[in-house]
């Protein structure tokens, strides 16, 4: 698919927010979906070669958003894309967050892992669900789009490791305290955070869905480069493709030691 870059805004030294116009994409996208984006703008150049996976951060009026953090070649190149350029990307890929009708849920986001939760929050709010957001970052730079989340969330609990905004510490601390209020947990962020969050949820028998990152070559199930290890009901370990059977998984089934 192709779309027009409507904005590509530097939020701070690490983060950018890109808005892309593409009716077709927006019509198909559901919370949890990701897409593969071609960072290299010229078909005749092969560096960077592969497309890059990004979660759908939000959709609105024929546009979708990508919140991205500068890592390497691909994201740096994306940050250079000028407004009104045409950009190429796949259709919405992967599975989606499931909505099981819970009345009150917690969303737990760390760093750029906050991205897919915004779209999810919009969606859950529409279903009449009450949402508390636990949002952790290393520094104040990692705390973004609070105003957007305010539209959908009852409480927003922010933590930073340096304590410059929100509570000082990590996000699982306040979550632990309030955990019993929730019917379901949705989480996305660094693996350590997801593992810790899952532990709290499982201990309290609360269903949890997490969205995982893996390096991807194809994004469509062909290369087998993006495996996630799940324990099935018989205790056997199964290999799942993050790009097809994921990126959203039942947290309680993930074999964290293999990730």
């Amino acid at each position, binding site marked *: 698919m192709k779309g027009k870059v409507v904005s590509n805004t530097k939020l701070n030294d690490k983060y950018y927010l890109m808005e892309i116009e593409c009716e077709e994409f927006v019509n198909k996208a559901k919370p949890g979906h990701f897409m593969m984006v*071609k960072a290299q703008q010229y*078909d005749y150049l*092969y*560096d*960077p*070669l*592969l*497309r890059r996976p990004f979660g759908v951060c939000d959709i609105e009026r024929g546009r979708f958003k990508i919140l991205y953090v500068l890592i390497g070649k691909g994201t740096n190149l994306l940050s250079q894309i000028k407004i009104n350029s045409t950009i*190429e990307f*796949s*259709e919405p890929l992967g599975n989606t967050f499931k909505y099981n009708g819970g009345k009150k849920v917690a969303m737990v986001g760390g760093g750029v892992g906050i991205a897919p939760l915004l779209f999810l929050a919009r969606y859950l709010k529409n279903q009449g669900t009450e949402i508390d957001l636990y949002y952790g970052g290393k520094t104040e730079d990692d705390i973004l789009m609070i105003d957007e989340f305010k539209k959908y969330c009852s409480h927003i609990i922010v933590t930073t490791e340096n304590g410059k905004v929100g509570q000082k510490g990590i996000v699982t601390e306040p979550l632990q305290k309030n955990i019993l209020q929730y019917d379901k947990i949705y989480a996305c962020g660094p693996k350590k955070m997801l593992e810790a969050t899952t532990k709290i949820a499982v201990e309290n028998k609360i269903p949890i869905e997490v969205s995982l990152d*893996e*390096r*991807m*070559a*194809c*994004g*469509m*199930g*062909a*290369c*087998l*480069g*993006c*495996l996630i*290890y799940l324990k099935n009901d018989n205790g056997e370990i199964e*290999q799942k493709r993050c790009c*097809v059977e994921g990126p959203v998984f039942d947290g309680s089934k993930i074999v964290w030691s*293999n*990730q």
Partner: protein
Amino acid sequence: MSKSPLSINLCGIEFKNPIITASGTFGYGIEYSRFIDINKLGGISVKGISLKETSGNKMPRIMETNAGMLNAIGLQNVGVEKFIKEKLPILKKYDTKIIVNFWGKSVEEYVEVAKILDNENVDMLEMNISCPNIKEGGIAFGTDPKMTYTVVYETKKAIKNKPLIVKLSPNVTDIKIFGKMAQEAGADAISAINTLLGMAINIETKKPYISNITGGLSGPAIKPVAIRMVYELFKTVDIPIIGIGGIMNYKDVIEFYLAGAKAVQIGTANFVNPEISLKIIDDLEKYMADKNIENITDFTGKVEI
């Protein structure tokens, strides 16, 4: 001129065009069916099949490099039985040739898989003696001329119905020797190249980017090595050569033809753009028409020295 300039006959099999998706980069064909029209492809070489289901290497298995990528999937596959039962019936619904890439850990395993596939509704068999990412078998067969001869000879002897393609490893001093061995042992065609053995290290974590330590390098970065090897093979063997390695567009296809290829496989490019193989077919059609070429194989080996 009713015959399409792109149609080719490979070991008795009629391909509507010479664009085949390369093993390991197109799953079992089914994965891409949601995104592109599989019926337009000349053929599909499926992910390497073995006797038993194989879970492959540990994660991480892939990493991008400069104009290329490393992979160490480790030949994860569903096993020949499941392939035949679950994957093949779906695949056969498409109007495209099915090449089954396969491998074993011993000569016996190669023979056994080949025998099973020989009686199935597939078009060709492609023997992978060149995967750098498994400990036993794989590349060991492809880097020792005697082992190449033996495994090809025994496999060819065991099958009756399907043409046998032997896929060669580029990780050798002299690819010509391996081409000759494969031909003498009865191979009906050669495909070249598989991936180059490579490695990349994350300087922050000090760990290799690939858990298997080394992986196979593919993509545009390796095209010059692939072109050279196809050229060397063309001067050495009489059986057809399927060119593989870094093809990204129709010009690359023509380059492989000039070097000596009779068909080509598209690998890593499928990841970059799932529609790329179809685009290459369209572009080749235009090129043939523009240049008024009767058949694309007119280019085979026509590099002017």
